[in-house]
C-alpha cells in the first residue's frame, strides 16, 4: 500500500518540475516585471500549443524534428561510442585527436553552417550531418573520458584470463564506462536536438519546430513562439527520460 503510493509518488516527481516551471513563469508574468506581450501567460502558450498540435501544423513540425534528431543522434551514437572506447583505451591516441574534438566542441554549430551547406547541400542532409557531428563529438568525449577514468582492476582481470584487446574493450571497458556513456548519450541527444532546431531556424527549412519558432519570432507571435520552445524542451526531456530509464535498467550495479 505505502509501497505502491511511494511508487506512484516517484513516478509523479518529474511532473513537479513541470509544475514548478509553469508556476515560476506564471509568477513572473503576474509580477509585471516583464511586458505581457513579450512574456505571455503560460496559459496562452498552452492554448497555442494545443491549437498548434490539434488544428495547426505543430504536430507535423514536431514529428519532423523528432525524425531529424533521431537520425542525427543515431549516426552520432553509432560512430561515437566505439570510437570513444577505442580512443579512450589509449590516452596517447586520444591526446593526439583531442585538439580536433575540443576545437569543434567549442565552435558554434551556427558558425559551421556555411561549411556544411557547401559540403552537403541545402537539403535535410546538411542539418542532420551538422547535428550528428556536434553530438558525435560530445558522445565521443564523454565515452573516452569514461574509459580513461575507469578502474583498471577489471581490465587486468580480463587480461589475465587471456582476453584480446578487442575483447577487453567489448567485454570490460564498454561496461565499465557505461554510466559515463549514458551521460554522454544524454548530452548528445540534447545537443542534436538543439542543433537541429537551430539549423531549422537558421539554415532555412519549411517545417520543424525550429522553423515554427523562427517564424513565430519574426511574426511576433509570442504564444506560438513559447509553444514551440516548450514543445522542443519537452521533447528534450522526453528523450533524456528514455535514456535515464534505459540506464536504470542496464546499469544495475551503479554506485556499488
Amino acid at each position, binding site marked *: 500500500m505505502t509501497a505502491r503510493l511511494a511508487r506512484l509518488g516517484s513516478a509523479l516527481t518529474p511532473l513537479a518540475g513541470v509544475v514548478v516551471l509553469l508556476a515560476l513563469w506564471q509568477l513572473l508574468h503576474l509580477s509585471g516585471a516583464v511586458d505581457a*506581450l513579450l512574456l505571455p501567460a503560460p496559459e496562452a502558450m498552452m492554448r497555442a500549443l494545443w491549437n498548434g498540435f490539434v488544428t495547426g501544423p505543430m504536430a507535423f513540425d514536431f514529428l519532423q524534428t523528432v525524425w531529424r534528431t533521431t537520425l542525427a543522434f543515431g549516426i552520432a551514437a553509432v560512430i561515437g561510442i566505439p570510437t570513444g572506447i577505442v580512443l579512450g583505451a589509449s590516452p596517447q591516441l586520444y591526446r593526439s585527436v583531442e585538439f580536433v574534438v575540443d576545437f569543434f566542441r567549442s565552435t558554434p554549430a551556427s558558425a559551421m553552417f556555411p561549411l556544411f551547406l*557547401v559540403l552537403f547541400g541545402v537539403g535535410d542532409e546538411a542539418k542532420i550531418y551538422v547535428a550528428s557531428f556536434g553530438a558525435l563529438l560530445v558522445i565521443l568525449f564523454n565515452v573516452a573520458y569514461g574509459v580513461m577514468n575507469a578502474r583498471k582492476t577489471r581490465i587486468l582481470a580480463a587480461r589475465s584470463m587471456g582476453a584480446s584487446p578487442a575483447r577487453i574493450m567489448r567485454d570490460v571497458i564498454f561496461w565499465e564506462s557505461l554510466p559515463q556513456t549514458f551521460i554522454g548519450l544524454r548530452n548528445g541527444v540534447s545537443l542534436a536536438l538543439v542543433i537541429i532546431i537551430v539549423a531549422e531556424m537558421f539554415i*532555412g*527549412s*519549411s517545417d520543424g519546430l525550429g522553423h515554427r519558432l523562427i517564424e513565430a519570432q519574426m511574426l511576433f507571435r509570442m504564444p506560438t513562439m513559447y509553444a514551440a520552445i516548450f514543445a522542443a524542451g519537452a521533447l528534450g526531456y522526453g528523450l533524456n527520460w528514455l535514456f535515464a530509464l534505459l540506464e536504470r535498467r542496464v546499469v544495475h550495479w551503479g554506485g556499488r
Partner: protein
Amino acid sequence: RVGVFPVSSALPFFVARERGYFAAFDIETEEARLMGGPAVVGAMIGDQIDVAANLVTIEGMNANLLRSGVARFIAVNAQNATFQMEQFVGRKGLGASSLADLVGMGPLRAMSAPGPANIQAAKGVLEAVGLREGTDFTMTELAMNLHVDAMQAGTFDIGYTLEPNGTVMRDVGAAELIEAGVIATHLLGRPDAKAFAAGAAMTGAFVERNPDVAARFAAAWRLALADIAEDPTTRELLKGNTFTPSDVAMTMPMPEFLMADALTDQDRADYVALIRFAVDRGVLEQPIDPLDYLIELPEPAR
C-alpha cells in the same frame, strides 16, 4: 534550383510558381529555403542554386567582387518613401515625426538591422540629418527576429528596421514610424529616388550553361512582376510562404519590383549611387559598377 529567403521580397517567386507561369514556360523549380544573404551567396558560388529569388544587391556586388558574374540581377526592387521597406522607428512616446526631430534629443540608443550594409546605411542616414555617433546616438546591431521584442521592451529609443517588422511593431504598438524610405531621401538625396536594395539574381554559370532556360525563367518572372504591380490579391501568397503575418500581408508596404530592362536612366544613376555609398563606407572593398551585372535576357521564342 531557386534559393529563397522567405521574406516579402521573395513574392515574385511564389506568384510565378502558384500562378503557373513557371509551368507555362516549362520550368520546374526546386525551392531551397536559405536564411539570409551569406547562405544565398554561398549557395550561388558553390553552384548549389541557379537563381536567388531575392538577394541584397550589395551582397550580390560583393559576390561579384569575389568572382565576377556570380550574381547577375534579372530584376531589382526599388524602395523609397512610397515603396516603403527600410525605415526608422521610435519607441512609444518618443514624439518624433521625422528624422530631423531627433536632433538634440540625444544621446539616443539606436538599434539597426544586422550586417555592415544595414549598419552603414543606418549610420549614414543619421549622419545625413546631422546626428553624430557617440554624442547623439549609439548604434547596436540586432538580429531581425529580435527587433519587435527589443522595441516592445523599450531597450532602444530608435531603430532602423525593415518590413514587415515595421508594420508588426506599429500594429502591436511597440513603436511608431519616424520615417520610411530613408535611403532614398537621405543617402540618394530625393524622396522619390529609387534605392535598389535587393533583386532576383542568376548565377553566371547558369546563364552560360542554359541560356534558354534562363531566358524562360526571366519571362515567367516578368509576368509575375506584372501581376504584383496590378493585382493586390497576389499578396495572399505572402501568407504561409514568407515570414509575413497574414493580418498585415494585404496592407504592408512592399518594394517596387522592376525587371532589369525597365530601369530608367535616373534609376540607373540611383543604383550606381547606392553601390558607391557602400564602397565609400567600406562595405564593399573595391569600387564596382552594378550596371555591369544587370542582365537583360531575350524573350524566349515560344
